[in-house]
């Protein structure tokens, strides 16, 4: 029953390896943007070397491509903002004890919705709500489609936070709101971010289908290429959409790494 303080080493030594986690970006991180830049450069040189006919020139000029890119990005941003504005609060709400019983049914409905083909959803909205603005149709359809990944990951992320930790926080006198903001959400961030990243990529890709209902975006360039059988136009449209999606995914991945809480 001697009561002297033992040296700290009485417990196992601290695991030091975990400290040096954030290292300089590896070449792998920069590989993709370099590749994408090279692809874009190659495309520019290729298109520039071609003798473009009148039809091709109608799609392949800076003004047209820029306007479609801006349309594409605008639609995507509006959709993503709507997704986040609904899915994150809904996910938080559905993980609160009082609303938890609705979580199962909501996820079941969302899962069935996910089996709906995106093109089908956009067209269905277009033929049912004929009076709607085509951009509204695209925004609503793509928004509905992108809610699930963010909603599900918000719920999973919050649910995997250790209950005992929340109780410890409550036991120390943190208010439920404070526990939510400074314990639960920070710890759910990695899972939530990966859901948001998925939703971003899905959104940017699905907005390419806006062209089918005449709502613009870079999908127009692909459609022009198919309709006019001009491979140069088709290639340009496809490459631009692909590069945009990959770039968004890469950026989101970067943000994901940056926002991940340290130590967790």
């Amino acid at each position, binding site marked *: 029953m001697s009561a002297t303080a033992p040296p700290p080493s009485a417990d196992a030594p601290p695991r030091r390896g975990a400290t040096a986690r954030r290292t300089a970006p590896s070449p792998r991180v920069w590989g993709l943007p370099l590749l994408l830049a090279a692809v874009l450069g190659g495309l520019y040189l290729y298109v520039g070397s071609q003798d473009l006919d009148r039809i091709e020139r109608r799609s392949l000029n800076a003004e047209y491509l820029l306007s479609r890119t801006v349309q594409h990005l605008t639609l995507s941003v509006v959709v993503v903002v709507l997704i986040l504005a609904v899915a994150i609060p809904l996910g938080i709400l559905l993980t609160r004890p009082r609303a938890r019983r609705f979580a199962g049914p909501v996820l079941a409905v969302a899962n069935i919705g996910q*089996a709906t*083909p995106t093109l089908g959803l956009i*067209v*269905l909205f277009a033929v049912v709500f*004929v009076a709607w603005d085509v951009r509204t149709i695209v925004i609503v359809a793509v928004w509905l489609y992108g809610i699930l990944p963010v909603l599900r990951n918000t719920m999973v992320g919050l649910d995997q936070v250790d209950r005992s930790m929340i109780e410890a926080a409550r036991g120390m006198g943190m208010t439920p709101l404070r526990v939510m903001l400074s314990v639960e959400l920070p710890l759910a961030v990695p899972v939530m971010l990966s859901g948001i990243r998925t939703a971003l990529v899905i959104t940017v890709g699905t907005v390419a289908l806006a*062209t089918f209902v005449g709502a613009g975006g870079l999908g127009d360039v692909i459609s022009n290429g*198919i309709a006019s059988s001009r491979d140069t136009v088709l*290639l340009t449209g*496809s490459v631009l959409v692909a590069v945009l999606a990959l770039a968004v995914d890469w950026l989101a991945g970067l943000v994901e790494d940056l926002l991940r809480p340290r130590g967790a």
Partner: protein
Amino acid sequence: MTGFLDYTSGNVDALLQATLEHTVLVLQGLGLAVLIGLPLAALTYRARSRTAVLAVAGVFLTIPSYALFGLLITPLGLGTAPSVVALTLYAFLPVLRNAIVGLREIDPAVVESARGMGLSRLQVLLRVELPLALPVIITGLRVAAQMLLGIAAIAAAVNGPGLGNLILQGLSSAGTPFAVYLTLQGVLGIIVLAILFDLLFAALNRLTTSRGMIHV
């Protein structure tokens, strides 16, 4: 509702034809992905190169479907060919990743004892490792199938087969009473297929999980 049913009884042949095409298209894509993905997984699951292979497969999955179909028209023309290849590329990541994960999580002691009994490397792979990894592989197929069923609707935009054609017909007849019916047929057809595929894979999973093996 009655309008939809009346209309459907009128074009049930076209609907079944499109559904069959859709199914075949998805199965072709899945089949090719398995034919290429499984050997590739077997070759790389222990090698460092597996991360590179998975990264490339991940890039395909990130490319939006309309863009990938579009990119494939130039070399392959319009129709079934670019559709099948695009679906194969999309199925690649789930198939490959699950095969690699399934093979990697096998207890090394099992492999070692099989080698110790004199089985060749190939025999170990075919008789021990692949059967043990099968449930995980099938889960990958299940995920891939669900995804392909939806993406295959885009095939219609490159003159490919499948239920997407009903959706695009619905679009082009927008304003007529049939527009909604045609689109609904396409959409519901795909949802029903998704449910049937899911049931099928659930049954397969149960069949292939060896008795005495804990469900992975």
